[in-house]
């Protein structure tokens, strides 16, 4: 279930229907920028930062809408950076997107 690309003026219509079943809390300071979570994420909603770095100088992962709470990231993370949550009821893109 991979949300398609969105257009410049905001999420594509079908993207708005993306269902978000879970989320993660990321301890970006513990991260050593190894990328393992990116490849492991089944819905492919984790993306490494490019410019932002943690205080030790490592890039770290960011979450995009579409998380299913499957905990693959937590299982493969060598530095225990993920806390995984599953929503009681799935949310839509905007609800998830609006969680800032």
């Amino acid at each position, binding site marked *: 279930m*991979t*949300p398609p*690309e*969105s*257009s*410049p003026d*905001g*999420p594509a219509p079908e993207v708005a229907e993306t269902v978000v079943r*879970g*989320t*993660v*809390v*990321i*301890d970006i300071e*513990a991260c*050593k*920028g*190894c*990328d*393992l979570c*990116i*490849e*492991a994420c*089944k819905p*492919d*909603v*984790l*993306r*490494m930062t490019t410019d932002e770095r943690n205080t030790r100088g*490592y890039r770290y992962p*960011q*979450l*995009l*809408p579409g*998380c299913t*709470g*499957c*905990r*693959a990231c*937590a*299982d*493969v*993370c*060598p*530095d*225990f*950076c*993920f*806390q*995984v*949550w*599953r*929503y*009681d*009821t799935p949310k839509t893109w905007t609800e*998830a*997107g609006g*969680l*800032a």
Partner: protein
Amino acid sequence: MNRRNNDELRVIATEHAPDDANQVADFTPGLIDVGEHHLCPGCGEPIAIRAVMDAIALLGLADTCIAVFGIGCSTAFSNNLDVEVLQALHGRAPSVATGVARVHPGLAVFTIQGDGDMANEGLQEVLHAAARGENIVCIMLNNGVFGETGGHLTVTTTIGQRTKNTLDGRTAAEHGHPMRIAELLAQIDGVGYVARGAVNDAGNVARTKRMVVEAFTAQQAGLGLSFVEILTMCPTGWFVPTDEAPDYLASTLAGTHGVGVLRSALEPA
């Protein structure tokens, strides 16, 4: 490659836990007191140790187990677990665990060692402990190198694998052949369970955790020595970028050291 590089997609804040959700996984597993460690980025050992500690928590063995650690990168964890730990010398863990298990026969006594520790320095220890059918679980984290010294040749290094003392790749002519430890132990009558897992992807992590649960189940049932070899990534020792290490493990290490359950005295579930 990550297909999510479109900047318009909204990044979701991940500083705080949501209040309308149930927690599925925590940062540091309950039986590891501090998640921080100094192992290299992309190291597979913390993943394997997490799988082992999760299995121990799952089986409710936290207050009836004793870990015996070998000397290697994973030694970083022997002072950070919330289970009782006896730190052994390089190669000696299976013998030390034998002494512990004979004094406390009912406990889940287990060793955590690297391939250098077990297969090089202490191969005699685990072979004889297996032959004696000692009631212990031996876990060997196999990354095919001595990680703590920066990645040197061990007996499980595969043909063609580059290490700090086989810079052009291991050759049989020059450096001899790798040994398959799980297979070696599977043919010794005193063992009750032998399997080899890997932690190079989430599926294998889950599969490895199941193997560890089975290993402890067999041990608690007194079926003899249980052995679980876990293939782990060592980007530093392999001269491989961290994100390529999982595939390198699959092609190089697992090519010689096949993943799977080799022997089990447990009745099929």
